[in-house]
C-alpha cells in the first residue's frame, strides 16, 4: 500500500522537478502553437526569460510599501516547502507527517494571499480587479480541493499526503472506477483554475480587464518577475504531479520505469492543458462559479458513491 | 408609652409647623428635627432586647410591636429622615425656580411640612396597629395626610391627580373596611369570647373562623389594600398621583406608604386558616402577575419618566405579592426594603432632573452626562439597581423567587422583568446619553440640581452595601 522509501531517489526527483518545472509552460505553448499552425516560442523560452530577468535590477513603484518586494520571495519559499511533501517519483517523501495535506493546501493559500496583498499595494485598479477575482475563485477552488482530500482520506484512512496518493489508482479493486474518474476530472478543473489556465483566466491576453493572475503581477520587473514566473511553474508542476500520483498505482514495475512513467504522465498533462486551451475560449466571470461548484458536486457524488456502495 | 409617643410626636411638630405659617425657614427646620427625633425614638424602641407591652384601651389593643412592624418601622423612619433632610434643601430651591419660571412658589412651607409629618405619624400608626380596625383608620388617615401635598402647585393636572387619588383610594379602602367587618363577623364561636378585630386574639382563634366568610373577607381586603398598594386592576391612581406630586412626596409614597398597605394584606395572610392558604396563594400570585403584566406593557415607550418610576413601583409591589404568595415571608421583607430605598433615591433624582430641565417628558431631556453629570450617574445606577442587576438586593429576591416558583411562573416572571428592563433602559439611556441637550438647562438650575445629589448618593451607597452584605451571607442565611 505504501510508496517505496528511497530518500536518495526522492531527493533526485525533487531536484529534477525544480529543474524541469518551467519546461511545462514550454510544452503548453508549443501545443497551442501547433494547433494554431505556427511554430511558437522555443521549448526553453521560459528558462531564458527567468535567467535574463534575474540579472536585471528591480523597479518599484513609489506608492508601494515593502510588501511588493517581500511577497514574491516568501511565496516562492512557501511553494518550495509545499513541494517537499509531494511523494515525487513514487518515492515516499521523507518529511511526510500526519496532516501534511492540510499544511500543503494552506501553504498554497499563503502564497496566494501574499500575491493578492502585493497586487493591492501597487494601488492600480487592474491589480485590484485581478486580486478580488482571484480571492473569489480560489475560495471555491479550496472547497473542491478539500472535498477531493476527503475522498482520498476515506480510501486511505489517513491524512498524510504520501499515504493518501498511494492508496488509490485507476484500477484499484473494490472502488468503482467512475468515482475515481470523477475525482480526477474535478482535480483537473482545480489545476486549470489554480494555475490560471484558459477556461478561467487567459494568461496571454493584452486586455487587462479580463486578466486575473497576469493583472496581479503587472507591476513587477527584474528578479521579482522571474521569481513569480518560476513560482507559477513550480505550482503547475506540483499540481500535475499530484494528479499523476493520484492515477498511478503505488508500484509501476521497477523504480526506473516508475520514474519514467511519472515524468511522461506529467508532460502528458501539460500537453492536455495545451490542448484544452487551444479548444476552449475563456468563460465569462459569472459562469466560473457554476463550473467549480459543478466539480464540487462531482466529488461529493464520488464520495457518496464510495461511502454507500 | 413610647409607642404612643412615636405617633404623637410628629403630630405635635405638624401642629407647631402650621402655627409657624408665616416664618419662612422655620417649618423646614422643624421637619428635619421631627424626622430625626422620630428616628431616634424608633431606634430606641426596636432595640433587639426590648419587649414592649401592647397598648390597649377599653378592650381594643391599639399599638404593639412584632417582627414585621419593627423592620418596616425602622425602614419607614429612616426613609422619611432622608427625604426630610433632602426636602429641607429642595424646597427653597424649588420655590426660587418656580417663581423664576412663573409657575408660582408652590404650597406654603408650613402646610407642606404639616402634611408630611402627618403622613409620618399616620404611617407609624399603621405599622404599630395591633387591631384591624385601628389599622384601617390609620391607612385612611394616610390618604388624608398625603392628598393635599399633591396639589403643591395648583396646576389643572395636579388637581385632577389629587381628585382621582382621593376618590379611588377612599373607595378602595372602603372595600377594605367591609372586608374587615366581614372578618369580624366570620367568628362563629360564643359571643363573649369574640376576638373583635384584635390581632392577637384573632391569631389565637383563627382555626374556628368560618371558611366562606373568611374567603369573602380576604377578597375584599385584597381589593381594598390592593388599591392602596397599587396592585394591577386597582393601580390606576398610582401613575397620576406619583407623577404630579412634588419630588419628595412620591419618594415617601412609593417608599413607605405602599409597604404599609402591604402590611395590611400580610396581617390577613397570617390569619388565614390552613385549609384556605391555597386559596390565598392563588389569589396573591394572580394579582402579582397581573400587576407585573400591566407594568411591563405600560413601561414600553413611556413618555414621562416619573410615570415610568410609578409603574416600576406597581411592578415591584406585584413581585412582592408573588413572593408572599409563594410563602417566603423573609424574602418579601427584603424585597420591600430594597425597593423602598432604591425607589426613594430614584424619585429624588427625578425631582432634581425636572428641576434642572423643567419638563417631565423623556424627549425633553437629553445629554444629561454633559449638563448634570452627577445626577446622571446616580440616575443610571439607580435604574440598574431597580431593574435588579446584581449588586442590588432585588436581584437576589428575583433569583430566589424564580428558584422557588414552578417553572412556568418563573419563566413568565423573567420574561416580564426583561420587558420592563427593555422599556426602562431605553428611556433612561435616551435621557442620559445623546448629543448636547436640546433645551439646555440654564446653568443656575443645573447647579441647583447638582447640589441636591448628596441624599440620593447616600441611598445608593446603602443599597449597594445592603446587596453586598446579603451576597456574603447568602450561603449561611436562611434565605435559601
Amino acid at each position: 500500500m505504501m510508496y517505496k522509501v528511497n530518500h536518495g531517489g526522492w531527493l533526485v526527483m525533487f531536484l529534477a522537478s525544480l529543474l524541469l518545472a518551467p519546461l511545462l509552460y514550454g510544452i503548453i505553448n508549443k501545443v497551442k502553437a501547433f494547433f494554431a499552425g505556427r511554430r511558437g516560442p522555443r521549448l526553453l523560452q521560459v528558462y531564458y526569460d527567468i535567467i535574463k530577468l534575474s540579472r536585471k535590477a528591480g523597479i518599484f513603484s513609489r506608492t508601494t510599501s515593502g510588501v511588493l518586494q517581500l511577497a514574491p520571495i516568501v511565496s516562492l519559499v512557501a511553494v518550495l516547502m509545499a513541494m517537499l511533501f509531494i511523494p515525487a517519483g513514487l518515492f515516499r517523501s521523507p518529511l511526510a507527517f500526519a496532516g501534511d495535506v492540510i499544511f500543503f493546501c494552506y501553504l498554497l493559500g499563503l502564497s496566494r494571499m501574499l500575491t493578492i496583498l502585493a497586487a493591492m499595494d501597487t494601488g492600480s485598479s487592474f491589480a485590484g480587479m485581478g486580486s478580488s477575482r482571484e480571492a473569489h475563485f480560489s475560495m471555491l477552488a479550496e472547497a473542491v480541493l478539500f472535498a477531493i482530500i476527503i475522498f482520498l482520506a476515506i480510501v486511505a484512512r489517513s491524512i498524510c499526503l504520501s499515504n493518501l496518493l498511494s492508496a488509490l489508482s485507476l484500477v484499484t479493486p473494490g472502488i468503482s472506477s467512475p468515482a475515481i474518474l470523477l475525482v480526477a476530472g474535478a482535480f483537473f478543473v482545480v489545476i486549470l483554475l489554480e494555475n490560471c489556465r484558459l477556461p478561467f483566466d487567459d494568461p496571454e491576453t493584452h486586455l487587462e480587464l479580463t486578466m486575473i493572475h497576469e493583472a496581479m503581477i503587472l507591476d513587477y520587473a527584474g528578479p521579482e518577475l522571474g521569481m513569480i514566473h518560476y513560482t507559477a511553474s513550480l505550482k503547475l508542476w506540483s499540481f500535475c504531479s499530484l494528479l499523476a500520483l493520484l492515477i498511478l498505482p503505488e508500484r509501476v514495475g521497477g523504480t526506473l520505469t516508475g520514474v519514467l512513467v511519472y515524468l511522461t504522465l506529467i508532460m502528458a498533462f501539460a500537453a492536455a492543458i495545451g490542448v484544452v486551451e487551444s479548444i476552449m475560449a475563456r468563460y465569462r466571470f459569472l459562469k466560473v462559479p457554476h463550473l467549480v461548484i459543478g466539480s464540487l458536486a462531482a466529488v461529493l457524488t464520488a464520495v457518496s458513491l464510495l461511502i454507500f456502495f | 408609652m413610647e409607642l404612643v409617643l412615636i405617633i404623637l410626636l410628629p403630630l405635635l411638630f405638624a401642629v407647631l409647623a402650621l402655627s409657624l405659617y408665616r416664618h419662612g425657614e422655620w417649618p423646614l427646620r422643624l421637619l428635619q428635627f421631627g424626622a430625626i427625633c422620630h428616628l431616634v425614638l424608633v431606634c430606641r424602641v426596636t432595640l433587639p432586647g426590648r419587649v414592649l407591652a401592647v397598648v390597649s384601651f377599653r378592650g381594643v389593643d391599639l399599638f404593639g410591636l412584632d417582627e414585621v412592624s419593627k423592620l418596616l418601622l425602622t425602614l419607614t423612619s429612616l426613609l422619611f429622615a432622608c427625604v426630610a433632610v433632602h426636602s429641607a434643601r429642595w424646597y427653597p430651591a424649588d420655590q426660587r425656580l418656580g417663581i423664576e419660571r412663573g409657575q408660582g412658589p408652590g404650597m406654603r412651607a408650613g402646610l407642606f411640612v404639616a402634611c408630611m409629618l402627618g403622613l409620618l405619624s399616620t404611617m407609624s400608626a399603621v405599622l404599630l396597629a395591633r387591631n384591624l380596625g385601628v389599622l384601617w383608620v390609620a391607612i385612611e388617615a394616610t390618604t388624608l395626610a398625603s392628598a393635599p401635598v399633591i396639589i403643591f402647585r395648583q396646576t389643572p393636572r395636579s388637581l385632577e391627580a389629587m381628585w382621582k387619588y382621593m376618590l379611588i383610594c377612599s373607595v378602595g379602602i372602603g372595600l377594605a373596611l367591609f372586608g374587615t367587618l366581614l372578618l369580624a363577623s366570620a367568628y362563629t364561636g360564643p359571643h363573649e369570647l369574640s376576638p373583635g378585630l384584635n390581632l392577637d386574639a384573632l391569631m389565637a382563634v383563627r382555626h374556628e373562623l368560618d371558611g366562606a366568610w373568611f374567603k369573602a373577607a380576604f377578597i375584599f381586603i385584597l381589593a381594598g389594600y390592593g388599591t392602596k398598594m397599587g396592585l394591577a386592576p386597582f393601580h390606576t391612581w398610582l401613575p397620576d398621583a406619583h407623577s404630579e406630586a412634588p419630588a419628595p412626596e412620591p419618594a415617601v409614597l412609593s417608599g413607605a406608604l405602599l409597604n404599609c398597605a402591604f402590611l395590611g394584606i400580610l396581617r390577613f395572610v397570617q390569619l388565614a386558616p390552613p385549609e384556605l392558604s391555597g386559596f390565598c396563594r392563588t389569589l396573591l400570585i394572580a394579582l402579582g402577575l397581573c400587576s407585573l403584566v400591566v407594568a411591563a406593557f405600560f413601561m414600553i415607550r413611556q413618555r414621562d419618566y416619573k410615570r415610568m418610576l410609578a409603574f416600576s413601583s406597581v411592578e415591584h409591589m406585584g413581585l412582592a405579592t408573588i413572593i408572599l404568595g409563594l410563602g417566603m415571608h423573609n424574602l418579601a421583607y427584603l424585597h420591600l426594603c430594597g425597593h423602598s430605598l432604591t425607589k426613594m433615591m430614584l424619585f429624588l433624582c427625578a425631582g432634581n432632573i425636572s428641576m434642572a430641565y423643567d419638563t417631565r417628558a423623556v424627549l425633553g431631556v437629553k445629554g444629561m452626562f454633559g449638563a448634570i453629570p452627577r445626577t446622571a450617574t446616580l440616575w443610571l445606577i439607580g435604574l440598574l439597581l431597580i431593574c435588579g442587576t446584581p449588586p442590588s438586593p432585588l436581584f437576589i429576591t428575583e433569583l430566589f423567587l424564580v428558584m422557588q416558583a414552578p417553572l412556568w411562573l418563573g419563566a413568565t416572571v423573567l420574561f416580564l422583568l426583561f420587558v420592563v428592563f427593555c422599556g426602562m433602559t431605553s428611556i433612561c439611556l435616551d435621557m442620559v446619553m445623546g448629543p448636547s441637550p436640546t433645551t439646555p438647562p440654564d446653568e443656575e438650575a443645573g447647579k441647583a440640581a447638582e447640589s441636591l445629589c448628596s441624599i440620593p448618593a447616600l441611598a445608593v451607597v446603602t443599597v449597594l452595601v445592603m446587596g453586598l452584605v446579603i451576597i456574603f451571607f447568602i450561603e449561611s442565611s436562611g434565605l435559601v
Partner: protein
Amino acid sequence: MSTLPEIALILFLFTNIVLVSSSRLTHCIQLVAVQGVLLGVIPLVFWDWQSAAPYGELVFLSLTNIAIKGIALPLLLILAVRRAQVRRELEPVVGYAFSQLFAILIIAACFAGYRHLVDDDTANAALLAIPVAAATMLIGLFIIIARRKAITQVLGFLVFENGISVFANGLMVHHGAIVELGILLDVFALVFIMGIAVFKISQEFQHIDADRLNALGDRQDPENSAAPPAYTWE
C-alpha cells in the same frame, strides 16, 4: 316583618332608590342626610333594651353618627355646592329611568345572592342587614360611575360608606368604640377635604364634570403618535 328594625332597614333601602332617581342636587343631599339619620337610629332600634348591658357607649356612638352623617356632612356639601356656583341640574351619564331599573336589579341580585349563600331560614332582622348593606354599597358605586358631577361622586362615596356602616350596625358587630369613632372621623375628614377639592376644581376648571378631568393618562392619542417614540430604534 312588622318589627321596628325591619322597617328601619326597608326605609334605608327605600332612600337608596329615591336617591338614584332624583334629578336635583340639593334633593340628593337631603336624601343622604335622611340616610345618615336612619343609620344612627338603626343600632338604637336593634338593641334589646331589656338586657342590662351598658348602653351608654352605644347611645353616644349613634348620636355622633346622626350628628356627623345626618347634619354636618350635608351642610358642608350644600355649602360647597353654593360656593362652587354649580348649576343645580344633574346631567347623569346614565339616564334616570335606566339607573332606577339598575338599582332595582342590584337589590334583587343582592337578595338572591344572600338567599343562596346563607340558607338558614331564621328570618331575624339582623341577617336582613347583609343584603341591604350590599345593595347600598353597589348603588353607591353605581352613583359614582353613573353621574358626571364631582359633588355627586362625593355623595356616591357617602352612600357607599353608609352601606358599610349599616352592615356593622345591623349585625351588632361591635369592635370597640374607639374604632367606630375613628371610622366616623375619617369619613368626615375625607368628605371635608373632598369638598375643598371640589371647590378648588370649580375655581380652576370653571366646571366640575369629572369626566372632563381626563388630561392625565398614557394613551398615545393617534394624532400626536407621529411624535418620535421614546427611543429611536431605527
